[in-house]
C-alpha cells in the first residue's frame, strides 16, 4: 500500500484577510471580519467552534440550562493564560462587563443584548455589576438571559464573549493589545502586529489542547482580492480570503479543486421602501418587480454559478425550512406573464412606465448584478429603472434616513439563526430601512423570542417569514457563498456557513512549494 504524503516539516501557514485590515484586536472593541479570524486563533470562549463550524466545548467543558432556557451554568476546565495564570470564571465576568460598559464605547455592546440588563447598562442607566453574568466560584460561570436564546452556544464562540486578562489591561490600558503585553488563552499567541499590515501568531504551548495543534506559526496578511490571487500563484499565500467572482472560471481551469466555494450566511437582497412612492401601499408593483427578475440567469451568467438563487430573505440553515413562495416553482415564462399582470394592476403600462432609481454602494461586483436586474425589468416589464451608485457611507446614510425607494440591502448574519435576518423587518428596528411594519409579523417574532421549545420557535419564525414574502417586504436575489483559494497541501478545514476556519485545526502536508 502506498502511503500518502506525510506532515510537512515546516508548519507555517500564511493566510490572507480583507485589505480593509484589522482596526483593533481588542475583543471588546473589534467588529471587523479580519480581526475576528485573528481573535479566533488568539482567544477561546466558553464554547469553541469545531472544525465543521458548529459550537462545541471550549474553556467550558460542560454546561446545563434551566427548564425555561434563561439560566445557563458553565463548568470550566483547568485552562491557563499564555502567561501561565489560570483562566478563572471572573475573567469572563470582567470581559463581558467591559464590553457593555459605556466607557469602553464598544460598537459591539449590542451583540450581548440577550444577556440580562446588557442594553440598559450600555445605555448608561444601570451599573455594570447588574449584568447577567456571575462567577459563583473560580470554575463556574452563571449566565442569565432575557429570553431563551437557542443560538447562545454559537454566540459564545464570538470574540466579544472571550475572557480577558484584567491585570494586563489595568497595567497597560489601550496598549494591552500589543505583542509585548497581550495575554491570551487561545491556541496561539501574538508575536507581531503591524497596524493594517502583517500579523504573526505562534503556537501557545500553554493552551489546554496544545498537544493537538500542529501549526507552529500563522501569518495573516491584509490584501485586496487581486493581490491575494497574485500572491497565491506566487506561492507565498496558502489560504486566501476571497477572489474576484468574475475570475471563477479562469481560476477553476488553472487551480482545480483548490478553488473552494460554499454557502455563506448572507443574503443579497434589494430593499424596497414601503413608506414612500412608488412602493407605499402598492403590493402589486412589488410583486411585479420580484417576479420580473430571472434569478437563475443572474446567478448563472452574472455570478458565474457561485451563488444560489434566493426566493426568501433567510439563507438555508440547518434545521430551518425557509418558506419558498409558490410562484418560485413556476416556469420562467409564467412568472413573467404573472409579473406583467401585477405591473398592469399596479397602474403601469408601456405609455406610463415605472421610473425609479436603484441605489447601491460602489463596487464592481454590485454594478454587474444591478445593471442586469434593471435590464431584466426593462425587458420583462418595460420598467425604466436607473442604477445609481454611491460611496458606501453616503448610501448608508441616505438609506437610514429612508430617502431611498429601491436600494442595496445585503446582510451578513451575526449568528446562524433566521432571527438575524428577520429582525431587519421588525417595526422600529434600527436598520429597518424599508420602513416595513406589520403587527402580525411583530407578534410572531415576539412569540418566537419567548419560546423555549427550539423546534416550535423555528416554525413560528417560518410563519413570520411567510408573511414577509406575501407582503414582498424586500426582493431577494441570491445567497452569498464563501470564496477561497486553498493550497491542496493545507488540511484540517471544512467549509462552513459562518466562514470561520480556526487555524488550530489546520496542518500542512509535504509539498514542493517553499
Amino acid at each position, binding site marked *: 500500500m502506498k502511503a500518502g504524503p506525510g506532515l510537512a516539516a515546516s508548519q507555517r501557514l500564511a493566510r490572507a484577510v480583507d485589505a480593509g485590515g484589522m*482596526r483593533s484586536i481588542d475583543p471588546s472593541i473589534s467588529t471587523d471580519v479580519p480581526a475576528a479570524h485573528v481573535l479566533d486563533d488568539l482567544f477561546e470562549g466558553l464554547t469553541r467552534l469545531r472544525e465543521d463550524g458548529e459550537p462545541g466545548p471550549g474553556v467550558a467543558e460542560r454546561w446545563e440550562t434551566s427548564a425555561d432556557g434563561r439560566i445557563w451554568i458553565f463548568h470550566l476546565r483547568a485552562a491557563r493564560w499564555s502567561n501561565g495564570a489560570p483562566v478563572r470564571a471572573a475573567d469572563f465576568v470582567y470581559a463581558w462587563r467591559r464590553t457593555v460598559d459605556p466607557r469602553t464605547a464598544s460598537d459591539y455592546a449590542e451583540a450581548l443584548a440577550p444577556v440580562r440588563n446588557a442594553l440598559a447598562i450600555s445605555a448608561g442607566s444601570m451599573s455594570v455589576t447588574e449584568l447577567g453574568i456571575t462567577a459563583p466560584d473560580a470554575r463556574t460561570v452563571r449566565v442569565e438571559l432575557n429570553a431563551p436564546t437557542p443560538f447562545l452556544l454559537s454566540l459564545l464562540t464570538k470574540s466579544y464573549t472571550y475572557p480577558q486578562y484584567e491585570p494586563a489591561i489595568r497595567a497597560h490600558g489601550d496598549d494591552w493589545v500589543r505583542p509585548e503585553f497581550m495575554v491570551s488563552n487561545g491556541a496561539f499567541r501574538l508575536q507581531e502586529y503591524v497596524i493594517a499590515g502583517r500579523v504573526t501568531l505562534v503556537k501557545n504551548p500553554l493552551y489546554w489542547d496544545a498537544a493537538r495543534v500542529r501549526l507552529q506559526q500563522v501569518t495573516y496578511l491584509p490584501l485586496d482580492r487581486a*493581490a491575494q490571487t497574485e500572491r497565491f500563484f*506566487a506561492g507565498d499565500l496558502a489560504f486566501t480570503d476571497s477572489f474576484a467572482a468574475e475570475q471563477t472560471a479562469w481560476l477553476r481551469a488553472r487551480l482545480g479543486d483548490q478553488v473552494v466555494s460554499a454557502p455563506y450566511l448572507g443574503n443579497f437582497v434589494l430593499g424596497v421602501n414601503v413608506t414612500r412612492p412608488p412602493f407605499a401601499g402598492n403590493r402589486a408593483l412589488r410583486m411585479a418587480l420580484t417576479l420580473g427578475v430571472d434569478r437563475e440567469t443572474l446567478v448563472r451568467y452574472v455570478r458565474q454559478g457561485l451563488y444560489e438563487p434566493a426566493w426568501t430573505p433567510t439563507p438555508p440553515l440547518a434545521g430551518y425550512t425557509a418558506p419558498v413562495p409558490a410562484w418560485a416553482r413556476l416556469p420562467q415564462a409564467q412568472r413573467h406573464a404573472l409579473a406583467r399582470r401585477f405591473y398592469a394592476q399596479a397602474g403601469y403600462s408601456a405609455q406610463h412606465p415605472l421610473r425609479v432609481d436603484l441605489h447601491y454602494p460602489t463596487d464592481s461586483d454590485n454594478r454587474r448584478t444591478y445593471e442586469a436586474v434593471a435590464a431584466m425589468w426593462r425587458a420583462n416589464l418595460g420598467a425604466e429603472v436607473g442604477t445609481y451608485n454611491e460611496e458606501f457611507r453616503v448610501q448608508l446614510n441616505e438609506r437610514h434616513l429612508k430617502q431611498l425607494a429601491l436600494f442595496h440591502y445585503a446582510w451578513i448574519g451575526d449568528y446562524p439563526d433566521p432571527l438575524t435576518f428577520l429582525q431587519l423587518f421588525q417595526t422600529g428596528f434600527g436598520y429597518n430601512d424599508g420602513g416595513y411594519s406589520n403587527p402580525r409579523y411583530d407578534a410572531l417574532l415576539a412569540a418566537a423570542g419567548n419560546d423555549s421549545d427550539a423546534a416550535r420557535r423555528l416554525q413560528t419564525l417560518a410563519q413570520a417569514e411567510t408573511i414577509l414574502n406575501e407582503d414582498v417586504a424586500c426582493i431577494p436575489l441570491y445567497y452569498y457563498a464563501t470564496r477561497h483559494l486553498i493550497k491542496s497541501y493545507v488540511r484540517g478545514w471544512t467549509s462552513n456557513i459562518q466562514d470561520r476556519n480556526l487555524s488550530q485545526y489546520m496542518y500542512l502536508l509535504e509539498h514542493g512549494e517553499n
Partner: protein
Amino acid sequence: MASFLLRRLLTAIPTLLVIATLAFTLLHLTPGGPFDSDKVLVPQIQHAIEARFHLDEPVWRQYLRYLADLARGDFGPSFQYRNTSVNELIAQGLPVDAAIGASAMLIALLVGGGTGLLAASRPGSWRDQLPMSLAMLGISVPVFVTAPLLILLFAMRLHWLPAGDWVAGSWRHLLLPSLALALPYTAYIARIVRAAALDALGQPWIRTARAKGLPTHTIVLRHALRPTLVPLVSFLGPALAGVLTGSIVIEQVFGLPGIGRFFVTGALNRDYTLVTGITVLYGALIIGLNLLVDLCYAWLDPRVRNRT
C-alpha cells in the same frame, strides 16, 4: 540667506492653516459619519462612542480643539484604528514610504540622469533614440499596470523576488515596489536631462571650453552639468511629493503598510483625524521639499543667490 529661509518658513504657517482648515471642512461636509455602520447600534451606545471622540460637540469647538492639538503636533486618536493615535500610525507608515520613495528617487536619478547624459552626448544616434523611445513608454504606462507586470515576471514566473509584504531592512522586499514607482520618474528625468544637457552644450561657454582644448568628459561634468541640473531640480520638488503620495497605488498592489493606505481607508471610513493628519503632513512635506528645491537653485544659479 537666513532671512530668506525665515521668511519662507513663516509663510508656510498660514499655508498649512489653510490646508488643515480645508481638510477639516471637506471631511465634515461629507455625508456619513465615522461610526455609521451597516450593523445595529443602540442610539445610546452610538452617543457614547461619539462623545468619546468629541463628535457630540458643536463643529466650531471640534475645529478649535483640532487646531490646538495640531499646534502641539498631536494629530489626535484615530477613529477606525481604535486604541491607536494618528501619530503612531504615521510613525509606523512614514518610514515605509520614505524607504520606497528614497530608493525610487535614487534609481530614477542614477538611471534617468545617466541615460539622459548619454543620449545628449550623441544626439540622433541609436543611443539617443532607443532610450528616448523607451522613456516615452515609461511615461505613458501607469504604475497600476507596471507594478502587476513586475510581480508577474519577477515573483510569479521567475520566483526571484517576493510579490509583496514588507520586512524592515530587507532589500528584496524593497526592490520591486521601488522599481515600479521609479519607472515613470526615470523616464521623465532622462528626457529632462537630455534636453537640458543639449541646451547647455550649445551655449557659448561650452564652445569656449572646447576651443581651450578641454577633454569631453571635463566639459560635460565641469561646465555642462550644473546648468543641466536647474530644470531637473525644479522637477524634483513636485516629483518628491509625487513619489510620496504616488506610493498609495504601490502600497495597495504590494500590500505595504505605508501611510497612503491609511489615507485611502481613512477617507472611506470617515476617519476625520487620520485623514486631516495625513493631509497636513503631506502639505508640510511638500512645502518643505519645495523650500529645499529653492535652496538648491540658489546654490546652482548665482543669479538667484544674489537676488536674495
